[in-house]
């Protein structure tokens, strides 16, 4: 009986199974359809338009004219652009080490102690991250005023504070302070999750061997935290190249052009100077730079990131 029925059953089952698979595929595509449409219309298409625009002279109103690589070759001679790149690199150089070291310190501190106190401190340190950069920058504008809170406090210890936002050197320092203060919460939480994943037995074994606290930190904690540190570094680089909000609200790129960071300059070109083609070229240059830097970091990770 089974010999007789089996072939017919599978003959029926094959088209049935194919129909089922086709139905499943259709359902899958239906579920992702809104996302696919969204990415196509609002990301992929704009990305191509942006690339196309970077080879054109375009003010956003009249017909764009093809100018080849002129937008790109004009960049090195654009003093304001070179200045903005320098300032962005200075900002990155100042903010990334501060952010990473502070985030690591906060994470290590939060990792000790009981669950309740740890969650209280974590909540407190993370709060700036969720607050509007506009409101924060307005508060810090008051803080950095010549007679503001910062200089009042510095005066208490006998330091005659600078005119922060009106000073071409210290304005960037102020921008870095606000950015670090606001941004440190996110990497802290990432690093804290890494710390919590380190097996307690390793520290117990180190205790048995009589390892000193610095040895515990540098021989156990830091190596096992390198995957999280790597992730934090990659995201921090991408974020810090795109610093905009603090500058827009607190300094408007000034005094002079002392805090005119790259995105602020691109923004001005696109939406104030009507240079959409040139702005697109700059945006693409930054995109390529970020991709290159991320690829380099991915290559270098083999040298220092430790995957257990």
């Amino acid at each position, binding site marked *: 009986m089974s010999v007789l029925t089996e072939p017919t059953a599978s003959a029926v089952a094959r088209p049935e199974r194919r129909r089922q698979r086709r139905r499943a595929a259709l359902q*899958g595509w239906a579920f992702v359809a809104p996302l696919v449409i969204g990415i196509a219309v609002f990301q992929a298409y704009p990305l191509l338009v942006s690339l196309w625009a970077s080879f054109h002279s375009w003010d956003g109103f009249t017909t764009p004219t093809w100018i080849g690589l002129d937008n790109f070759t004009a960049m090195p001679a654009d003093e304001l652009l070179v200045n903005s790149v320098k300032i962005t690199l200075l900002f990155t150089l100042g903010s990334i080490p501060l952010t990473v070291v502070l985030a690591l310190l906060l994470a290590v501190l939060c990792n000790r102690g009981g669950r309740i106190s740890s969650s209280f401190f974590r909540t407190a340190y993370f709060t700036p991250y969720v607050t509007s950069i506009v409101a924060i920058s307005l508060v810090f504008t008051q803080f950095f005023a010549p007679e503001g809170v910062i200089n009042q406090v510095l005066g208490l210890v006998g330091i005659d504070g600078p005119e922060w936002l009106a000073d071409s050197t210290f304005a960037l320092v102020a921008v870095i302070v606000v950015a670090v203060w606001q941004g440190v919460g996110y990497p802290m939480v990432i690093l804290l999750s890494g710390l919590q994943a380190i097996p307690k037995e390793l520290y117990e074994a180190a205790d048995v061997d009589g390892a000193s606290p610095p040895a515990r930190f540098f021989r156990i904690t830091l190596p096992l935290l390198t995957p999280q540190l790597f992730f934090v570094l990659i995201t921090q680089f991408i974020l810090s190249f795109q610093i905009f909000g603090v500058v827009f609200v607190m300094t408007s790129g000034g005094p002079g052009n002392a805090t005119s960071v790259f995105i602020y300059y691109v923004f001005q070109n696109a939406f104030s100077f009507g240079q959409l083609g040139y702005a697109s070229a700059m945006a693409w240059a930054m995109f390529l730079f970020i991709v290159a830097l991320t690829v380099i970091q991915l290559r270098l990770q083999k040298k220092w990131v430790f995957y257990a």
Partner: protein
Amino acid sequence: MTVLEKQTALPGAPGGEQHRGHRRRVRRLSGWSFVRVLFMLALVVVFATPLLWMINNSLRTEAAIAADPLGLAGPRLELDNYAVAGEAVAPFFLNSVKLAVLNVVGVLLIGALAGYAFARMQFPGKGVLFAVVLATAIVPGIVYLIPQYALFQQLGWIDTHLPLWVPRVLTPVFATFLLRQAFLGLPRELEDAARIDGAGTLQIFFRVMIPQVKPALAAVGIFTFIESWNDLFGPLIFLNSTSLQTLPVALALFRGEFFTTVSTLMAASTLTVAPVLVVYLFAQRYIVEGITSSGVKG
């Protein structure tokens, strides 16, 4: 604990010495932990001061602020500032609320559909598509903004609220990623049981699967709310009319016009930050879980 210590202390001199050494270290550690907690509290002051200063000065008169900029005297409960700021801020507040609701509902729906498909459904092109979704995260926002402006101009969307929610709702990259992770963590038996009971795919999705990933949905909802509320570029670029502006951007653009005193400016800033702070303090657990699962697994 004490029983154990006594027991280990009992057998002879060497054990006793070990015990004493252990106790000394415990005491030294607790001394350290006192210093550590003090240091951590000092850091809390550093992180909280700007926000406390903002709230404090929103409740004081202008003369009091001028006389005592540090505000150590504390608030005077000067609610007039809020009357002035509240009236100016109200229309922008409503715009921000409307956009936040549209964004949260939309991102949750589209993100959950896509996340579920990537986690549990079989369809050709799935792997490539998911890689594309992840790759979009590396593109700097400014690259999209310029051509999007041209696109919205053609569509007649400039100076409407559409550019501030339609693109965000239709490109829920973070939500898709996070919800895919959540759906992957559920046992397959859940769906199989529902399917045997004769439930269709949509029924299984809405009735069985969605209720299982509530924490992830909460994380996505809160992140979307914060992102929508704090968005700076979008409203700045795509809106011209004052009446359509969102709260944070209105605060940045019209501060000199509406808020000529520090006290009213701080009241308006407090009103801008308050909704996000309230949501954050009630739901910070989900935020931490969301960040942690979006990061790297060690």
